[in-house]
């Protein structure tokens, strides 16, 4: 532990798996005497702002999680319960590992979070929620990070049980194999939820720089009349980004008072929706690129202004930036840093949220309407 450099994350764990019933005892030992192979004599600070339950339904997808979790707890110290299920396994087994993940803060102090990994094989996977329930620290907010690439409600009983103990559910709609089914399922679940659960879609969080730049560029002070007069939006995106595109369009529609009226699947890879605004029809076209990552690449917004047709084009530039240019005035191009959009960074930023985001819920409803229109 002492050799951790400033900002570096270091994990100390007990080398052997332990019985689930022994988790609290082993954690206690880790803090009190350093454990067999745990924390050394250097003073450490145990910090805990939340319980974070991380669910992974397939051990093959759990690989990057420990590193991501370490980065999350560096920004938001938590007791982490990583639940790895393997329902398809033949044998039935439940085992745990405990560890302390520490990083060196200013003044040589080490800040440590408790990590518990519980792996369940076969039928034992059903016991994961009850195991997690017994390991939560009381009187702290609990968040569930649902990592499978399928909508949380598709997780049936496991999700149902885990979400009941969590006040906050975090998931990522980017990469869902069936976006229509996924968005409808989540929207249905959210509408039926009576326990005021906070719902966070990381795809919505990724849109924040786009929303900010669109909002600033079309501000009435800079583009008078633009917001009322938008009549066309074109979005170009990579594969598996449709839920995110719906959220972006849904946000515009919700904030600008557009009503969805029709959807059309055009030959090739283009989808089109029609909205009704106070000034008339708004046409939205969405084009999917055949290759590349699942990000939004380009958004074009057009309107009829006092000088005729006007528009703004927002383009993803490299990994970290969004750029904008206004039609006819290329010198006003601006770039906005998108910040760290890694999954871990996004989860860490969502965890302190203790309130529901009504705008997201409203946007999700419009996303559902757009998705359902494609079914007809």
């Amino acid at each position, binding site marked *: 532990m002492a050799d951790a450099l400033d900002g570096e994350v270091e994990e100390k764990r007990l080398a052997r798996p332990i019985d689930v019933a022994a988790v609290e005892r082993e954690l206690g030992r880790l803090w009190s005497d350093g454990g067999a192979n745990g924390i050394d004599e250097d003073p450490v600070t145990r910090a805990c702002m939340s319980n974070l339950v991380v669910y992974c339904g397939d051990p093959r997808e759990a690989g990057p999680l420990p590193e991501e979790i370490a980065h999350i707890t560096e920004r938001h110290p938590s007791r982490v319960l990583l639940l790895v299920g393997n329902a398809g396994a033949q044998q039935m087994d439940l085992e745990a590992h405990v560890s302390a993940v520490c990083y060196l803060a200013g003044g040589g102090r080490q800040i440590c979070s408790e990590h518990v990994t519980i792996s369940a094989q076969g039928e034992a996977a059903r016991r994961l929620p009850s195991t997690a329930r017994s390991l939560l620290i009381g009187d702290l907010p609990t968040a569930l990070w649902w990592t499978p690439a399928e909508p949380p409600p598709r997780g049936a009983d496991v999700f149902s049980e885990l979400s009941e103990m969590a006040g906050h559910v975090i998931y990522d709609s980017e990469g869902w194999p069936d976006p229509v089914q996924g968005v409808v399922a989540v929207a249905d679940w959210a509408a039926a939820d009576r326990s005021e659960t906070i719902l966070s879609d990381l795809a919505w969080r990724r849109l924040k720089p786009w929303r900010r730049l669109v909002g600033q560029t079309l501000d*009435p002070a800079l583009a008078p009349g633009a917001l009322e007069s938008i009549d066309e939006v074109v979005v170009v995106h990579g594969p598996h980004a449709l839920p995110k595109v719906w959220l972006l369009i849904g946000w515009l529609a919700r*904030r600008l008072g557009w009503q969805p009226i029709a959807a059309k699947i055009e030959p090739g890879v283009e989808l089109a929706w029609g909205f009704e605004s106070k000034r008339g029809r708004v046409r939205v076209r969405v084009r999917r690129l055949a290759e590349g990552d699942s990000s939004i690449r380009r958004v074009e917004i057009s309107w009829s202004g006092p000088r005729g047709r006007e528009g703004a084009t927002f383009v993803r530039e490299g990994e970290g930036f969004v750029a904008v240019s206004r039609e006819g005035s290329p010198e006003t191009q601006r770039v906005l840093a998108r910040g760290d959009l890694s999954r871990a960074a996004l989860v860490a930023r969502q965890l302190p949220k203790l309130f529901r985001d009504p705008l997201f819920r409203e946007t999700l409803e419009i996303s559902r309407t757009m998705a359902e229109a494609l079914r007809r």
Partner: protein
Amino acid sequence: MLETASHNPLTVGLSSTLLPEPCTVVIFGGAGDLSRRKLLPAIYNLMLDGVLPANFAIVGFARTDLDDAGFRALARKGIETHSRRPLDERAFADFEKNLFFVRGPFDEEGSYRALSKRLDEIEPGCGVPGNRIYYLSVPPSAMGVCVEQLQHAGMIRPHEGRPFTRIIVEKPIGNDLASARALNAAIASGFHESQVFRIDHYLGKETVQSLMAIRFANAIFEPLWNQKYVDHVQITVAEEEGVGTRAGYYEEAGALRDMVQNHILQLLCVTAMEPPWALTADVVRDHKLEVLQCLRPIAGRDVERFVVRAQYGPGFHHGVDVPGYRREAGVTPDSTTETYVAIRCFVDNWRWAGVPFFLRTGKRMPRRASEIAVQFKDVPPILFNADASNPLESNVLALRIQPDEGLSLRIATKLPGPKVRIYPVKMDFRYGTTFGDQSPEAYERLLLDVMAGDATLFMRRDAVEASWIWVTNVLESWTQSGSRWLPEYPAGTWGPLEAEKLIQAENRKWRTL
């Protein structure tokens, strides 16, 4: 929903972060230390956070022989050295496109004609609709002339409507009551009070902002926050450094003007204010002003009883010999400028009647530390506190402003074991360790507030003058005393013996920081 043309529905719900309008920041003294070390890194970090307006321009304005390229190089160096986040080449390339420099003396009409012309050229290209913020990072003596010239050049727009014009004024606001009033009057000749942002960077610090939240967002503190439960309050701003290269300024100022009149009295206001009925700028500032109005004047012979001033003598700083104040470069050998002040004062209102507030600040103290400590009254002398020879330690709520922003609460607990032994333990919360995210620098928050037009964390004219009224009483008494000698404290210690006596007279003691 879309209500009016001026309302932007797309910014609703984005975040709690303020969303400012596109604007130009003109930094008077743009080539100076504050600009390089604090302002340019702060604006750069705001851009990285995505909270800067999409369209902005930063214009350095000073006599220094620089051009745009030189100013950009200065910004790069400042960010590389002083930014809380490392310089990112891609982001900086975008940032520096918006940096410009105009050279000229502040007192010449021609400089402002050139500045105005350059701004008119820059702003359309940057997409800034004429909103301007003038940041006066200049000596107080130059402020009046800057305002006068801005006005003369027609560069100040009316306070209503758009585009806006705002001005940021750095401390010190005057040297005494008369000069503060004169400076405020000079500013007011060009700017409406709603356009004026008097900056005190202490108010941008996380802990200071958090103090209001601690008081008014928790049910457990506010009921105790009064004379019934609080024994006394200590506010400390300790500096490690000596006078350094600032002797010219400091000889004229001293600790009372440099620290007490602004930072410490502002901290006192946030600590002692009544709950505001809204978190709007004027409501909060009205309530802070009330504290200053309730501050019992210290004048005449009371000054000797309630105020201790001193100078640091020779001593050690981290084990190295350092000279006394009178031996510092630029300091007159018979200087009576105080480098240390300790004050016992009272806020004469219902809430704080009889509760002493101990204020202290000094240079060349053992370490840099600022805090507000609220010490609660003792428990009755029975049960665990029955032994008069070993009284229990009192509960203390301490809010650390720097370094390691955070708070701690000292409580008494029982040591494990069969015997009843009470031991004080500290529940400690640190921003840097509890919340993993870095706190923004004070200047980041404050600059963003100015861009967004939120004056809550800035000093209003009436409050500045009220604090000068209180401080000037003490200054006048010192002048009248004609003292040629001040008590000394060795550099690297917590202050003079007289300060110990000041607090011990009340059976209390200074906290060790």
